[in-house]
């Protein structure tokens, strides 16, 4: 619950704190986000705010149904839209057409950041699940990065459900919790959080107040 912010990962760097320690930080361009639609219990059955990020400069690239959707709230067309479920009070306080910015956060607060992790393709068990692989010496050959046995024979006579096996890795929704905000730059729309966040540089992310810290 609670409204969040949409942004874009710009990359990582490091800065010094007051004690001279090096802090790894991720720089996120967050906001300004336009509120595009307000959903209410009476109309849609739940309270939510749809917000958008990353303005589309070439308006002719936006199709007609979406143009109508944006013009209804009198905001510029945006690329990245997300809906946040909010409390009735929050829904009351925010209206479609308004903008929200990074100033909703303060340095020292904790946030959860959600993004789409980098795709790793079809990965083996060592990379995907952290298996140890097989011994490299003592006569082993052609069997180095395998997962070993996947189960017994006569009983249970099948491979158990959920068995960790090779397969597609990454490119899925990942949330990193409890990241500390190091700096907020209202004039540049920049948020700096301590540590890494999911996804590649220029990937879209969602920033919310930390669930476990409030």
């Amino acid at each position: 619950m609670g409204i969040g912010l949409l942004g874009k990962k710009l990359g990582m760097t490091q800065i010094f704190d007051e004690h001279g320690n090096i802090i790894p930080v991720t720089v996120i361009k967050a906001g300004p986000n336009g509120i595009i639609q307000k959903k209410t219990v009476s109309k849609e059955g739940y309270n939510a705010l749809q917000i958008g990020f990353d303005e589309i400069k070439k308006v002719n690239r936006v199709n007609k149904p979406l143009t109508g959707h944006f013009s209804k709230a009198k905001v510029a067309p945006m690329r990245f839209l997300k809906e946040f479920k909010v409390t009735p009070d929050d829904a009351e306080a925010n209206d479609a057409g308004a903008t929200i910015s990074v100033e909703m956060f303060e340095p020292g607060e904790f946030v959860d950041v959600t993004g789409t992790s980098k795709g790793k393709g079809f990965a083996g068990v060592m990379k995907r699940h952290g298996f140890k692989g097989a011994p490299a010496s003592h006569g082993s050959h052609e069997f180095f990065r395998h997962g070993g046995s996947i189960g017994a024979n006569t009983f249970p006579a099948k491979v158990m459900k959920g068995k960790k096996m090779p397969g597609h890795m990454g490119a899925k929704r990942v949330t990193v919790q409890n990241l500390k905000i190091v700096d907020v730059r209202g004039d540049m729309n920049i948020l700096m959080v301590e540590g890494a966040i999911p996804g590649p540089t220029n990937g879209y992310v969602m920033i919310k107040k930390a669930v476990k810290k409030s």
Partner: protein
Amino acid sequence: MNEMVDLIEKEHMRLDLTEIHVGDNVRVYTKIFEGDKERIQVFEGVVIRKRGGNTRATFTVRKVSYGVGIEKTFPMHSPLIDKIEILTKSKIRRAKLYYLRDLKGKAAKLKEKRD
């Protein structure tokens, strides 16, 4: 790198320190905090490596102390560095002076550069 990230890094850079080069004989004064007391520690040696850009840059100083080689890497823009003194400059032909690690005594001496 993103322009915005570059800008933020530039803000945290220390431009007041003396610019050093590989091969320089330097004296690095670092602040050390013990409880609430502060004192200055000096490390003197030759700069054998400079790496990284903007705030991420570091440099490594090597000295031989009682016959044991000691190397210390400092973040170039750390607020803990009080000052850097350049004692002498050297004529060098490498960007990284790792070969000094294998040399001892007179062979490990660099030719001094005089202006």
